[in-house]
């Protein structure tokens, strides 16, 4: 009858000390690298160690690459921070892509329409306000519908993305330079009107500082403020929130306005800070990647620095191997997918443990 004992059973862990959790994550990453190596050798015949070296070089190879890494990290982190308060509230905002785009569009509109007409400082203030308001409106519309008529926010915010993309496509044609080019090109290239100031000789430093400030703000807003507490209560149980007199609809709208405004700032940083132009792909899917960053970090703003770093690092490395080894960019995505699979999977082993059969344990 002994062989009827299950080989192992799954039990919930009591609580793991932080170093235990990180050890499990480290093991997951190592295992992921091993699997990636096997896949690489099997599919391409390349030496996996060389591939890893190239990934590393792609991310950190030169000072310029490090700056690009940090810039990408800052933008992804900014968008992730933006969606986080909504997620804490269990409001599944997957419309960050559109909110960033519309924020960028508002910035570009200010630069094109008012560039050279108002002093530069006034223009930049206008851009900041316009991008925040545009993002907030884009997020506020689904929020109001949710609060008033309980519409599905996931579908609504998703649909708002397409509207934003088409609006940008429309205005790109309206403002195209030169006529018939189908794109705007660099806005105010000669005057640099509305370009966000550069700190010293570092093109991306301003963006990084702005996002660092937002990170700290968001951490304290969520974990210490009264608003943050209300968001958590609404997310956990709307009935409890009503019971203690929290106005649920108002919290939903307020939180989404904040969420949208920060997305708008991401758009501002992209258009006014680095790109100085606008296209329909300026957000580049980061509105969706941000969802993963936020979830992986369990909605903790500081942990999000690491998770967004991880994703940006893998992405930069993937581009590098695609050029260096003449491999398709898709191959880099395969490796990214394998690594993410292991990291997300490791969360299971952080919450649960496998208890093996006693005898098996002795043998092992």
């Amino acid at each position, binding site marked *: *009858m002994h062989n*009827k*004992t*299950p080989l192992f*059973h799954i*039990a*919930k*862990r*009591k*609580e793991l000390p932080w170093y235990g959790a990180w050890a499990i994550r480290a093991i997951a990453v190592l295992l992921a690298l091993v699997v990636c190596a096997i896949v690489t050798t099997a599919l391409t015949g390349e030496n996996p160690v060389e591939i890893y070296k190239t990934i590393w070089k792609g991310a950190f190879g030169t000072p310029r690459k490090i700056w690009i890494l940090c810039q990408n990290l800052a933008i992804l982190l900014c968008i992730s921070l933006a969606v986080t308060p909504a997620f804490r509230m269990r409001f599944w905002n997957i419309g960050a892509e559109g909110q960033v785009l519309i924020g960028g569009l508002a910035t570009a509109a200010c630069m094109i329409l008012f560039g050279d007409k108002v002093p530069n400082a006034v223009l930049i203030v206008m851009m900041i306000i316009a991008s925040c308001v545009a993002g907030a409106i884009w997020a506020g519309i689904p929020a109001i519908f949710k609060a008033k008529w309980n519409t599905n926010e996931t579908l609504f915010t998703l649909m708002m993305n397409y509207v934003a993309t088409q609006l940008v496509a429309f205005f790109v044609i309206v403002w195209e330079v030169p006529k018939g080019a189908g794109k705007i090109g660099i806005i105010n290239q000669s005057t640099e009107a509305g370009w966000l100031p550069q700190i010293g000789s570092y093109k991306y430093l301003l963006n990084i500082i702005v996002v660092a400030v937002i990170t700290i703000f968001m951490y*304290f807003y969520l974990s*210490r*403020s*009264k*608003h*943050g*507490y*209300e968001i*958590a*209560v609404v997310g*956990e*149980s709307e*009935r*409890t929130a*009503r*019971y*203690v*007199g929290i*106005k649920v609809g108002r919290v939903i709208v307020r939180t989404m306005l904040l969420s949208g405004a920060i997305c708008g700032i991401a758009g501002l940083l992209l258009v006014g800070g680095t790109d100085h132009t606008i296209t329909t792909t300026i957000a580049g899917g980061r509105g969706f990647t941000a969802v993963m960053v936020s979830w992986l970090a369990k909605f903790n703003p500081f942990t999000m620095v690491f998770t967004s770093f991880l994703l940006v690092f893998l992405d930069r490395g993937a581009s590098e191997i695609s050029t260096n080894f003449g491999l398709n960019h898709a191959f880099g995505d395969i490796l990214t997918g394998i690594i993410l699979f292991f990291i997300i999977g490791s969360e299971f082993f952080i919450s649960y443990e496998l208890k093996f059969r006693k005898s098996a344990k002795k043998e092992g």
Partner: protein
Amino acid sequence: MNQKSVAIEMRDIRKTFGSVVANDGVCLDIYRGEILALLGENGSGKTTLMNMLSGIYFPDSGEIRINGEKAMIGSPKDAFSYGIGMIHQHFKLVDVLTAAENIALGLKEPGRLDIDAVAKKIKEICDTYGFDVDPYQKIYNMSVSQKQTVEIVKVLYRGADILILDEPTAVLTPQETDKLFAVLRNMRDAGKAIVIITHQMHEVEDLSDRVAVLRHGQYVGQMMTCETNAQEMTNMMVGRSVTLNIDRPEPVDPKPRIEVKGLTVRDAEGIVKLDDVSFTANSGEILGIAGISGCGQKELLEAIAGLQGCDTGSISYVNDDGSRKELIGMDPMAISSLGVNLSFVPEDRLGMGLVGNMDLTANMMLRFFREGHSVFANRKNPRALAERVVEELEVNTPSVSTPVRRLSGGNVQKVLVGREIASAPTVLLTAYAVRGLDINSSYTIYELVNRQKKAGVAVLYVGEDLDVLLELCDRILVLCGGKVSGIIDGRTATKRQIGAMMTRLGGEDANA
């Protein structure tokens, strides 16, 4: 007694969750043709022990023998193969399917599914034991008691002859409970082994043949029901002698505090839940509210608390100086900004009164987080309050940073009541304050309510146990179908009188 054969023997069962020992060294025998009542305080490990029989948990050590053979129950499927079926507190049914479809769900029988054959077999089971189930009725159209019946038929259909019921009566009316007990007796007489977990002493005395007691996860002892009494069983559960009398001090300077006039409430579907309800609740007095479940008790309390829209009528709060404030149309925020200090212990503790995933401190904050002008929430005072509540009410918790959902039912309720009375309310509304609580915790709650009464609070106590209402309350308002059937003096009323008023407006008088 000799013809009884052992169905299950549990030996030295131990189960831990992390550092928490849920069961240790438990030995328990379950016999066929017998109803065993498993007793113990909240958190004493009854449900854990039974979950190991039904394959939900696997014991860390110990041995389970079924029909004399060593058994390994690794999954609910294994449990079924041994003929063990458990009816959980929370039903596991698919709402949009019919009873027959739910029962057939997950069964692997060769060939096509013949739902009519399933229905026929269900009918046979029903006829054998006296159930009343329509196999073709959808689950969402069923009452709680009907759903429970489907759960029981489901395990019988799968050939279970050892049935475990976890607090089956907590959701039933007295009439439905009687029906359930009749069926259980039939099953016992048919030679099935039945285990029932309950906190109601009179149910234990009424139904069971044998009683087994757990305390702090350990097996304390067993006895034949006919040879013991409620007092002895309670003492065994608690581990010391407790008095089973509820104190009822004289009302303290009663003055009208809440005046309800002609209150009519409809629910979202437009069904009248409260119909022209009028009464006065006095300060320093406990007003009991009795009625069959779903007769408007919930709506009445929620209307006063500002959580339920009202059609017509008025709810006025009367100050000590006689001035009045109208509460209708106000939300809880507006009521408290009027200076009315109203506390509410709702029926749904973890879904409404507390946030299960938050710790004790954060749950204390629910009522107090708005204090002060800072944008930051003060966590110090709630933390101090949480520590005070834990100490004064003897809440059993690892720390004030433990999520409340990890606490057992009685401790959850102590946290909720502790918070609600901490703000020194003038009105205290409680709904089913002792539901699911063991005797010891229940008496703690009665005492807390009495203390509030002595402090001059107007207490509205919605309860389901008529014996308790009669012992605790000064006056009892009986609701019947959303109407006030009558208000009677708690000191002179009888159980029969209230029972009659619950089912017919005005009780026997109206019947005459």
